[in-house]
């Protein structure tokens, strides 16, 4: 499938996000990841969501998002070059000899150990979604205790900006 990342500037008002999420449910579009936070302008929130679909479907999603009164602007980040990142925490069971192995894998992926107990490491990793997936694959499945991912956030490269 054709994975796409949309950035949406939204009025920072109660209920606005539910309209965005509701739209995807109503129109039978898939949301793979969703992140949202206020921008430097406190009246605006920025939503980044990843979804999949044909070009026509993405165009429809974009048009319907634009139709929401509180949506100020929508940008398909994949229209041009962009930087995408995702943050992940993984709690990994690590005892005895496994500890060194986990640490080594973590170093290879440039992860940081942010919490340590006698039985586990908590690793923080940032990167493109594919890299996070690869890290998880590199671990012993049974050692993974908990995973939390932030969902994709992204920004255009170069001069291109999304602002009012």
């Amino acid at each position, binding site marked *: 499938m054709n994975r796409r990342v949309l950035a949406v500037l939204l*009025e920072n008002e*109660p*209920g606005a996000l*539910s*309209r965005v999420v*509701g739209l995807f449910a*109503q129109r039978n579009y898939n949301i793979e990841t969703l992140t949202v936070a206020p921008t430097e302008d406190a009246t605006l929130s920025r939503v980044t969501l990843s979804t999949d679909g044909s070009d*026509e479907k993405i*165009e*429809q999603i974009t*048009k*319907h998002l*634009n*139709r929401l*009164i*509180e*949506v*100020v602007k929508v940008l398909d980040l994949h229209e041009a070059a962009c930087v995408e990142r995702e943050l992940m925490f993984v709690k990994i069971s690590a005892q005895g000899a496994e500890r060194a192995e986990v640490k080594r894998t973590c170093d290879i992926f440039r992860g940081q150990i942010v919490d340590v107990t006698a039985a586990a490491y908590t690793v923080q990793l940032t990167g493109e979604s594919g890299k996070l997936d690869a890290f998880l694959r590199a671990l012993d499945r049974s050692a993974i205790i908990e995973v939390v991912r932030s969902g994709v956030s992204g920004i255009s490269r170069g001069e291109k900006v999304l602002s*009012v």
Partner: protein
Amino acid sequence: MSETLSGADMLVRALQDEGVEYLFGYPGGAALHIYDAIFRQQKVEHILVRHEQAATHMADGYARATGKPGVVLVTSGPGATNAVTGIATAYMDSTPLIVISGQVPTAQIGTDAFQETDMVGVSRPVVKHSFLVRDCAEIPRTIKTAFHIATTGRPGPVVIDVPKDTTDPAITAAYDYPESVSLRSYKPAKRGNGRQLRKAAKALIEAQRPIIYSGGGVVQGNAGPALTRLARRLGAPVTNTLMGLGAFPGDDAQFIGMLGMHGTYEANMAMHHADLIFAVGARFDDRVTNNPDKFCPEARIIHVDVDPASISKIINADIPIVGDARSVLEELDPLVEAELAKRSKQQEGGDAGKAWWRQIRGWRDAYGLDHAMKPREDGVILPQQVIQSLYRTTGGAAYVTSDVGQHQMFAAQHYKFPEGRRWINSGGLGTMGFGLPAAMGAQFAYPEATVACVTGEGSFMMNMQELSTCLQYGLPIKIICLNNQALGMVKQWQDMQYGGRHSQSTYSDSLPDFKTLAESFGHVGMRIDHAGDLDPAMDEAFSAKLKDKAVLVDVWVDPDEHVYPMAIKGGSMCDMVLNKVTTSQQGDYM
């Protein structure tokens, strides 16, 4: 110096300042502060309905007849949920409504308080926008913004949910009604793109087999006259959607009838064989296109719509034009005129149009609307005859609302509407129970006009309590009930697709006597079941003698009649069942 008012008084004052004539509503606890404010003023007339669904349809009928927004007031909980069907109806047909709902006090929201429903949540998928008032001081601006959103761009319903504490008479704030509002996130397009317009003008003139397909957007956008001028200049055939009827005069020689599932043979054939479709304010609804994959294989498509999301949603547009229908048509006309002037000097064109019209007339002669309609010798009334009689009696000058079912399609096919806003029906949602309250809304808007509601006995029973409201306000609606003693449209599908198994579509033993029913509500009731009585009864119902009375004419019609043509599911636009024995297929291009 601004005045200081309570939230309830501000709300009503804001409606006055918007020029609202009527507020259609029903009281209840959470709305009582507002109701008290209504009591203490005269400018906005409150119309007390008998069911909140009817309030929304009444406001909707008012809006469709006038182009002005309809305004509704309901209480929280069941009042609000009862309004939802009407809101969804308005949403699907893009009519401007403002629905104000009472809500439990802010402090109780989320506690499952008595009569609490999350109205903003419940209505979210069927509104253009909604507001939850947080503070009484917000009320004037919220109302201004709601009217702005409901009436501009592609119109639609807007809900304002008002917690009871924000209308508390003891809490006041400064009242300043804004002259206008502007939202950075909402700027509907008005004018079409110039380059696209020039492309469209050229395509329209070069086409050999053009067709104009216009919809509800032309009615809503008051673009009928502009469409008519352009269509006459082009000499092209015009078809209207169910929502667009009247935008182009129904009795004009260039009009080839409604298109779609129950459209005329000639309109659907012409669409299928066209080389250019000029779609204005229409949305390629599934009831029009039939199977999108088989839709009009040879046609290039120009699609004009104020809502970019409607364009290329179902069928890809070759020349998309985002803009207000009227503005686009008015700008297109001189471009077409100039192109035409250029061409005629070069001695081009001309005959193509003639051949195309010859073809269309051939289709009409073969299977036009009346081809299968044979008056019965035993005097049983055909439903089509009822509409023809209504058309004759009213001289085409009535506002006609309808419900949903066979009667609706017969009305759409056989009443020739001279202009937009005369035909009022629930096309998008298909809401049974819409007809009577919508007719009442139209009658409130135009007290002197003739307003007829064409209904079926099934639909009528979904909102017939409003007969009581008709009496209270002296509304002289004429209700023409095509009584086939069945949920006729359901029964027709069962005849055609389920081997005639009439599962739950008949109830003939238990129908009320509609004549005495109307009389018990204080109106005039008539019942006819013989074709010979049809015209006299119709004349009487619309006579000067009964001018001030609501009249219900219960017309017993042939229960076995079907609506034809009927599109064959999954086919192209030219695949239709034409009558009880004939089916048309692709090959019918003569």
